[in-house]
């Protein structure tokens, strides 16, 4: 394992991007920073600028308006970096799969290379932590 990837997995700075989500997943993500779950013990921080980020955390159904923005955000993220899709909507659109405002041919994983999916509507904070730990273990090998 190279030092670069090892250090990356020890200090993930997360940029949180909501693409037309119902905000349930976003609230569960904010729960991770509270004393009960405290992800800073893994070195995970929420950053305000995409240029500081190592992880692009995407929630929501990815509607047509958000698609170019998501692409732009991914291009602005310094590599190496990961993309995590949180929630059923991001993985497979869930109950919104037939609405007119999404581009059915292009879900998130056709637009960006997604490294981890965390399903659930919304996923519990424990599930999100579990997903991140699995991602870190898989990438750290």
């Amino acid at each position, binding site marked *: 394992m190279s030092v670069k990837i090892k250090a990356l997995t*020890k200090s993930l700075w997360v940029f949180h991007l909501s693409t037309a989500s119902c905000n349930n997943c976003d609230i569960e993500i904010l729960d991770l920073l509270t004393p009960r779950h405290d992800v800073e013990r893994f070195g995970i921080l929420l950053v305000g600028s995409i*240029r500081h980020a190592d992880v692009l955390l995407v929630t929501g159904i990815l509607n047509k308006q958000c698609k170019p923005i998501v692409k732009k955000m991914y291009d602005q993220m310094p590599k190496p*970096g990961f993309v995590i899709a949180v929630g059923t909507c991001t993985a497979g659109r869930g109950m919104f799969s037939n609405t007119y405002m999404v581009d059915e041919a292009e879900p998130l994983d056709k637009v960006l290379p997604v490294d981890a999916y965390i399903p659930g509507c919304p996923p519990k904070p424990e599930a999100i932590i579990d997903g991140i730990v699995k991602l870190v273990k898989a990438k750290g090998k």
Partner: protein
Amino acid sequence: MKMAVSVLQFLIFPGFLFTAAIGLLASWIDRKVTARVQYRVGPPWYQPLADIVKLLGKETLMPAGSSQLLFFTAPLIGLAGVTLVSMILWLSNLDPAGGFIGDIIVVLYLLTLPALSLILGGFASNNSYASLGASREMKLVLSYELPFILALAVPIIKSGGILTIGGILNYQAANGIVVGSFSGSIALIVAILCMQAKLGLVPFDVSEAETELMGGPIIEYSGGPLAVFKLTKAMLLFTMPMFLIVAFMGGISVSGLSLLWGILKYVALLVVIVLIRNTNPRLRIDQALRFFWGRVTVLAVIGVVLALFGL
């Protein structure tokens, strides 16, 4: 030979490597204590180091339309400044006779370099948030420099107008520490408030303002330059309290058990910084300016007058 020794001093012992190691440790203590205050567990001890190594291994992006030369040299200006300050302070601290006349004024000037590097980097990165943050940083520098210089006038007046760090240390070794006197303790309070603003911590983090400006001047920085900014900040967290210890508390003696006493002085100042940071909301820039030019300056002037009367 003398040149080689100076380069080694700059790079290794009192300079870069030593300050960076202690600074990263101090920034871990800062994050850990903050976490404990908020009933969290907090990061492991190697976390600041992991952050720096990770940032050095990442891609560096260059915003379109920015001034390339300034964008990349700005972080280095701050790093060089804070390293030089640490070197001058430690060399004077280890050997009070070794300084040069006026080194306390040089240190005062060099301590503005980290803020200057933020301003230059912010204006060079062609981003409206960065420009806004840089202009706030500029106003903040203008507001805290006046009381800070007035506060530092107190130890200079007390030691009989000697303008060397070594002279102030010698005076304190002979006549008791400056903070033991009435004017000295007032000046230390003023200096701690100015230090908080110099470090860019809450309540004076108006320029970086994570929640409204998303990092302010450093918003466009990524990879290596961002690592340099973070490292500068960590090193400043060691150098600024060290400066106050030298000016007001008689320096850190490195012989035997008195080293522990010196470490205790540093940790006490660090804990004060962290507690101020965790118990206050962020001020607006106009409130910060009014605070520094109003009450704090008045307090500093009272300190200077008392020092002139020998209290």
